[in-house]
């Protein structure tokens, strides 16, 4: 997945690489194991909402690896006339909701979860938000709503990489203790290493089962994970890759266990 992210960022000369690398394991566990996904139009499919839409390249990579997009389609990323832009577009196969404006996705997920409960459908809603997205007041409106209505089929995964567009979250709007905040609002909070597949598997695969509370997975991650010169560096929220750096990044990814 990381290789696809680097390849397409390089080819399209588009940034947001650090954001996509940050969520690689989360998206991999969701699409590889957690999501019940019998078909892109099956009404009982779990819905995944990438509320931090700017990390979409990780989602495209997952859709390709699931066989929903072809390699050729992926190669149109950020080209002219494509549906594969820098944020998810719902008319693209495999994507249910267009996102890109932070603070909106969790409310849509709550609607999906509520609809499932009303209709007696087993489907769940998984919403991936960024830690900085928790700056948006609208997100907390949904946090309160979902807890009040005990939407246990709603799962919010917070990509807690400690970084936002202009710097570190602790310097801009300090969110800590983030898990305690969600817990105080009535959510079932699990804090995990967001790059550990076993830990993610443990909190995502059986999430949304039975009555109870909505689940928040605080996934501690590193922006740009896997590429040493990108890790924790704000500039890789923006910069596209150049030839030499691409080769270096690729070498590190390929050498990783």
């Amino acid at each position, binding site marked *: 997945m990381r290789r696809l992210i680097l390849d397409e960022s390089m080819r399209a000369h588009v940034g947001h690489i650090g954001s996509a690398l940050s969520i690689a394991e989360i998206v991999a566990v969701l699409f590889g194991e957690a999501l019940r996904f019998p078909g892109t139009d099956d009404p009982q499919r779990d819905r995944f909402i990438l509320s931090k839409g700017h990390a979409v390249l990780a989602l495209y990579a997952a859709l390709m690896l699931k066989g929903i997009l072809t390699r050729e389609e992926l190669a149109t990323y950020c080209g002219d006339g494509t549906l594969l832009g820098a944020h998810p577009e*719902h008319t693209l196969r495999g994507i249910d909701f267009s996102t890109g404006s932070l603070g909106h996705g969790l409310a849509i997920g709550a*609607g999906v979860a509520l*609809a499932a409960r009303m209709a007696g459908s087993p489907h769940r809603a998984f919403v991936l938000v960024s830690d900085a997205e928790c700056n948006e007041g609208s997100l907390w*409106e949904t946090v309160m*709503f979902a807890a009040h209505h005990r939407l246990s089929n709603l799962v919010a995964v917070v990509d807690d990489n400690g970084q936002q567009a202009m710097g570190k979250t602790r310097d801009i709007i300090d969110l800590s203790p983030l898990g305690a905040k969600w817990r105080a609002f009535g959510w079932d909070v699990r804090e995990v290493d967001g790059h550990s597949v076993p830990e993610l598997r443990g909190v995502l695969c059986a999430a949304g089962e039975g009555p109870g509370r909505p689940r928040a997975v605080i996934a501690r991650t590193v922006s740009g994970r896997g590429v040493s010169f990108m890790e924790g560096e704000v500039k890789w929220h923006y910069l596209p890759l150049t030839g030499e750096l691409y080769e270096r990044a690729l070498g590190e990814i390929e050498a990783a266990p």
Partner: protein
Amino acid sequence: MRKQLAATLLDLAGRDPRIVLLTADLGFMVLEEFAAAYPDRFYNVGVAEADMAGIATGLAACGYIPFLYSIATFASMRGYEQLRDGPVLHRLPVRVLGIGGGFEYGHAGPTHAALEDLGIMRCQPGLTVIAPADDDQASAAIRAVYDLPGPVYFRISKENCPPLPGLDGRFTLGRMEILREGADAGIIAIGSIAAEAVRAAEMLAADGIRTAVGIVSSLRPAPADDIRKFLGGVATVVTVEEHYPEGGLGSLVAETAAGIGAPCRVVRLGAQFPFPAVIGSTRFLREHHGLSAENIARSVREGRGGGRP
């Protein structure tokens, strides 16, 4: 009009299990009957209009038809981006009920006066925009469009709006309704202020000025052909809306007139701005902003005389 809304929703919900009613903590003494009849399809989301718009998007994407209830200012503006990026962008059947537009909240002051809701909604592609003129038309309009595939914004009067003479509860999407014919001048009105426009036409008729009256309740899709025809029949057309003159009905009529090079004069009446620092009843504010029947009649006379209304 709120009573007709509640009764119509109650009836429709009995026939169509997809209907869900959400409110952002408003509708005391209006929504109780629905809440009691369909507790599983009624949600008070709390004072959270943006959240309500997002939740409705998820519900509609899963097959429901959510109606969202709030005061017109909050219903239209607090969650505007969520409506744009939700039901509009995804073409989903969410219905926004903006209650009491214009000056209907009177003494509540400018935070409660929706004077731009129709304009901001009209510029969203694929969003149907409806402002009924009387109670019977409101009921007909809700029934006519409740199961359209795309989103709808309704501006619903908070007051009782008795039948306008000649309207007979008619509503056709994308059409204008003609209440009176007249070759000397024309008035086109939208929403509950239409009652003042009808009274103005009656006053003018008493003075021998035969004034046609058209009601545009379907602002989008716009009744373009009907407006063109109306503009061709008179030398002066006055538009009447409880809204700023920009963006709403007045803009629609002026744009239509410009598009066909209509030889008639278009005078746009609406709320003055910046919002005057004055508080008062609905009646007082309508008068203050030049929207009473007397004001409208005066504007028609001045418009015909070529003066500055």
